[in-house]
């Protein structure tokens, strides 16, 4: 009973302070929400980082090329037994669920943390498991250890160690406004969370 009263008071207080429409609480994760997202809100939002790495065909790829598009950024490695493949599969599924306009815009960028084993060829072959049915193919990136470190630091994720096998599992979603307002962690709901939030950060939704 006391708890209910307290909750009511809190709701009233919140109503007083915010005034406007309150974002719907997330039913896809158990964290307090920031904004209308179902993933984990980032306050303050992280700006889209700039780093340059090498893509699977050996060409230089600047992350700024994806500017203005909703972009999912993930750091992992291809020999990863569980988290990396499931995360990539979740991302692929979420993108596939989107309406055509959002689906064709959305960019997915995978950066390897295991520079020794993950050559361009290996990454390309691995990514093809996930993006075969999608209109916009996933981008796989590699580089020198220093470049990979710099990219992770620029994206504000914890730097990987142990040859890339201990790495941050965060999936960062940068919106059309070039800010990441939300990120995702490996869970049963990850795909639904991404699917819910993608239209919110794409240009169609904001215009």
């Amino acid at each position, binding site marked *: 009973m006391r708890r209910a009263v307290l909750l009511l008071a809190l709701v009233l207080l919140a109503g007083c302070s915010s005034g406007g429409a309150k974002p719907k609480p997330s039913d896809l994760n158990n964290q307090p929400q920031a904004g209308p997202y179902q993933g984990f809100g980032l306050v303050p939002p992280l700006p889209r980082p700039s780093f340059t790495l090498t893509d699977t065909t050996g060409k230089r790829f600047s992350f700024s090329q994806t500017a203005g598009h909703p972009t999912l950024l993930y750091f992992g490695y291809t020999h990863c037994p569980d988290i990396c493949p499931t995360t990539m599969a979740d991302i692929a599924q979420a993108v596939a669920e989107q309406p055509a306009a959002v689906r064709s815009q959305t960019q997915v960028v995978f950066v390897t943390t295991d520079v020794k084993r993950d050559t361009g060829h290996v990454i390309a072959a691995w990514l093809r498991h996930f993006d075969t049915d999608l209109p916009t193919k996933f981008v796989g990136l590699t580089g020198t*250890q*220093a470049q990979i*470190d710099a990219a*992770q630091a620029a994206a504000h994720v914890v*730097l990987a*160690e142990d040859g890339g096998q201990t790495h941050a599992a965060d999936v960062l979603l940068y919106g059309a406004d070039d800010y990441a307002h939300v990120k995702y962690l490996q869970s049963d709901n990850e795909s639904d969370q991404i699917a819910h939030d993608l239209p919110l950060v794409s240009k169609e939704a904001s215009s």
Partner: protein
Amino acid sequence: MNWTSIRPWVGTVARVVLGGIWIWAAWSKLGNPRGFVQAVRAYDVTPEWMSKAIGYGLPVLEVCIGVLLILGIVTRAAAIVSGLLLFVFLIGLIQASARGLKLECGCFGGGGTTIGSTHYTLDILRDVGLIAVSAYLVIWPITRFSIDEFLARNDQVEMPSAKRMRSEQGQRKYNAMLEARRREAEIRTRYVTLALGLVVVLVSVIGIGVQANRAKIQGDVTATNASVANGVVAGKSNAPVTVDVYEDFQCPICLQFEQSTGQDIAAKIKANQIEARYHTMAFLDSASTGNRYSSRAANAALCASDVSVADFVKYHDVLYGKDSSGQQVQPAEGSHGRSNTQLLDYAKQAGIKGNDLTTFQSCMSGEQHKSLVAAITDKASQRGVSGTPTVMVNGNKLGSVDKASFDAAVAKAAAKASTSPSPSPSGSTSTSTSTPSP
């Protein structure tokens, strides 16, 4: 307590003191834009357009720098600009001192030629000290209680444990994070500096416009027998030699000059040897305690010129002479200037009476020629007259203002005029810019 922990506090003090000095220095200059332009001209190193840009824009720029320093935003850039400005001032002071110009610094308002001793050594030492304070802030721009400190609050990267730092992996990670945060800070600083720099430039340019507008002389600058360009002209225009006399009724050296050479000038006018143009300047208002004798006397003299040029000359002679009770009319510098009642008495003494006296009284007490006085003063400054008395014979400045050199210059100019059909500038006088000061 050690140096590392004291340093940012020292920086805070340096920042606030330097910023305060900039704002203080700008304040009185902002209030008197025309006066500061005249002070800049007196340094005699800038062309007219630049003197104006500096005179109007510099105080605004100084306020901007002061505000930035006190807020502690873009401290390094503000300190660099501060140091550069001070360096330019230093060069200006050194050149003025080396050329023997007797100037007041004008650093905190005022300026122009000074009567007393110059304080170049003190001014230069103060400048060097402030440059040192600026340099401190350039080297250590992050100070306590500053916006810069607030903006950099998230730039720190936690140092891992000592054990972890010994491992190649830990060190690599730490360095990568450090480098990333450093780059972000650099980009942020660049944008903030560019944006604020743009704002400061815009504000300064707008400030030039605003100050130029405020410096404009409002009101009527015409009079029956006086003009901005020529002052009051006594004598005939067909006289072979033209003499320009720039005087301030408050200036003691003008008094000396008038007492030694005044009768000589009057005689030469009468003999139609010269045409004298009296430029009644007023820039020594600060020398009388609050009642602006310099301006009021110049105005009264112009009011006398409305009656007739002859009355102007008589009134002018009374102001440089003695009153009916035999006392010297010119008030001592730093004393209370003569009252309007006294200025009216001098008019009676000069022989103005009847309706003319009534007209004179209303003109004098209402300061009807206030704008004209200001315009004549500014015109003189534009012509490079930075002190009084300045005497020009056919446009050539007299090197030393005394009877002997005046007579010599007039004689030489007259000789030249008689050989050539049109009066031409005489080369007899020194072109040195140093003139005796008030």
